[in-house]
């Protein structure tokens, strides 16, 4: 019996996709730093691409929830930022006596500058352990993970789903942003954390050694991304992957098959929070700043859009989407400052309307179009 062409390569396409992603990322991990070390690729480009890779991590976390599990979270930017803040606290404390207040002798305790600014004389207790790199990295996982666990537990237990889930996650991130905007919160208020100097003893700003540190961060980002892809690929192959997709397509059926879907969703939600948080933690030293603007609902929606544009429910889609939209932004804000938001908006609109599978579905579409020459093409219907 012959099968429809689109369905037979179900497994094969998945492996192929992973191989493509893996090879590309490996190349990126090796070639970009090499070029940069030989002065053929500017430091600017390395840092820029390092940030794109972090955004790709954020996009994957969105895709894991939305593309694979059917949970449209509008709060992933929150976990990204929380990860960034946790690591940022470490970086802030590393500044120590290199800050401008310390230089002028007004800061004997080596507090972050913004605290001296607001009249603090001693470090708040919850800041103190962040002197340790290990502890900070642990917190990058623990804090976003705990928040995801608590929020997810409440939300999934009471079976909040669909639109309700989206709007609730939006409210969560909005509330958190308001919280972080407050200067009383001693997390830097609107200005957030900036002016990082050192990471694990390596300078971020020195003209001689700084580029090497940035290169290291780039390689770290690429490797983390590769690891996450490996993990996602593995997950797809397990029964867990099957259950997760089944939840997306028909949660009731899964419930009546004896699966506690809430636990599965909670697991995915926490894992997605981890991934976003790691992305944020790597983002902060490369971007040089983290502030509450990064956790507003808008930023979350943007990440969702990257995934939609790239192609959700795929491994490569979110990566392509995150990199291409951000590269477009870097270019268009300079070339068309007045109309680039319109360009961006139109892309969202057109992708949703005419290309629900995103950019990764383009080759298949073109192929199908060629094959069916003359025959009417089925209108695109997405999975709801």
């Amino acid at each position, binding site marked *: 019996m012959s099968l429809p062409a689109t369905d037979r390569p179900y497994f094969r396409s998945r492996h192929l996709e992973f191989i493509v992603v893996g090879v590309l990322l490996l190349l990126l991990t090796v070639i970009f730093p090499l070029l940069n070390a030989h002065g053929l690729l500017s430091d600017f480009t390395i840092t820029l691409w390092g940030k794109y890779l972090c955004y790709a991590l954020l996009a994957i976390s969105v895709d894991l929830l939305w593309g694979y599990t059917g949970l449209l979270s509008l709060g992933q930017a929150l976990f990204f930022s929380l990860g960034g803040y946790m690591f940022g606290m470490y970086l802030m404390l590393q500044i120590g006596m290199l800050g401008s207040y310390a230089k002028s002798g007004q800061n004997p305790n080596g507090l972050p500058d913004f605290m001296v600014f607001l009249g603090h004389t001693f470090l708040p207790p919850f800041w103190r352990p962040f002197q340790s790199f290990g502890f900070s990295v642990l917190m990058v996982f623990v804090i976003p993970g705990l928040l995801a666990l608590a929020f997810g537990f409440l939300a999934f237990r009471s079976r909040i789903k669909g639109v309700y889930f989206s709007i609730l996650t939006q409210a969560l991130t909005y509330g958190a942003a308001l919280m972080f905007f407050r200067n009383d919160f001693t997390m830097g208020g609107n200005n957030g954390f900036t002016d990082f100097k050192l990471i694990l003893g390596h300078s971020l700003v020195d003209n001689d050694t700084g580029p090497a540190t940035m290169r290291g961060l780039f390689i770290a980002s690429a490797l983390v991304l590769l690891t996450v892809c490996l993990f996602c690929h593995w997950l797809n192959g397990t*029964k*867990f992957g099957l259950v997760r997709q089944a939840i*997306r397509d028909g949660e009731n059926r899964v419930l009546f*098959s004896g699966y506690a879907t809430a636990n599965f969703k909670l697991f995915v939600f926490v894992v997605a929070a981890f991934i976003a948080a790691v992305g944020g933690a790597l983002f902060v030293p490369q971007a040089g700043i983290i502030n509450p603007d990064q956790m507003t609902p808008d930023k979350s929606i943007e990440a969702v859009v990257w995934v939609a544009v790239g192609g959700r429910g795929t491994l490569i889609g979110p990566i392509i989407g995150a990199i291409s939209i951000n590269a477009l932004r870097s270019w268009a804000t300079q070339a068309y400052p007045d109309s680039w938001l319109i360009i961006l908006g139109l892309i969202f609109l057109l992708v949703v309307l005419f290309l629900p599978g995103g950019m990764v579905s383009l080759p298949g579409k073109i192929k199908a179009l060629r094959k069916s020459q003359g025959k009417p093409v089925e209108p695109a219907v997405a999975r709801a």
Partner: protein
Amino acid sequence: MSHPILTVEDVSKTYDGFKAISDLNFYLFEGELRTVIGPNGAGKSTFFDLITGRAKPDKGKIEFGFEPDSHDLTDLNEYEINRLGIGRKFQTPSVYVEHTVWDNLVLSLKGPRGVFASLFKRQSSTDRDRIADLLKLIRLDGKRDWKAGLLAHGEKQWLEIGMLLAQDSKVLLVDEPAAGMSDEETHRTGDLLISLAGKHSIIVIEHDMTFVKQIARDNPVTVLHQGHVLCEGKFEEVQSDPKVREVYLGRGKHGTR
């Protein structure tokens, strides 16, 4: 056959003032094949919803099993009830349309249901053999790599029955299994259900009277009307019961569709 495996007593359920189930008493015995019929709106699907935890009764008790191993189902939710051994097939076929036929069965196969088990458990060769057997039984072995969404309506019904069998539940709740099937397929379904009785306890909801006749030959039939049991007995007794005739005929149709 002495103990009821499923006990439903004095159960009522109201939706927005409409009494879907009122003071229902129902007992299912081990190994029994019970057919439930009743006009539209008699509360048949709500009855299943209450047993499977999709809806909670306003009052009454629903118990599964017998002492010392009995469970109050009203306190449990869907997946807990399923894990106790109650499987359900829905009225409209409910399969995972984006998964292959094979994966649909993998998901339903009896076994641990936890998050971590599903992460690390590998498929054993017994599992694969079991699925292959089931595929043959439901005659979908040629389409094992098809996405379930691409199957015909009848095939989906079969797949769902296969999924139910894969779960190996003690009690099977089967809601209109014959809808969308050809006469031949319907008959085969009937045979299958009859063959399952004894090993499993089964409740079948059905409209198709030919089908009911087939499966209820030696088995009791329950007639639901306005949320409670109108009468219970052998198919012929029920068919000749004046109350039943009034319920069906009064609505101008005799249950053949």
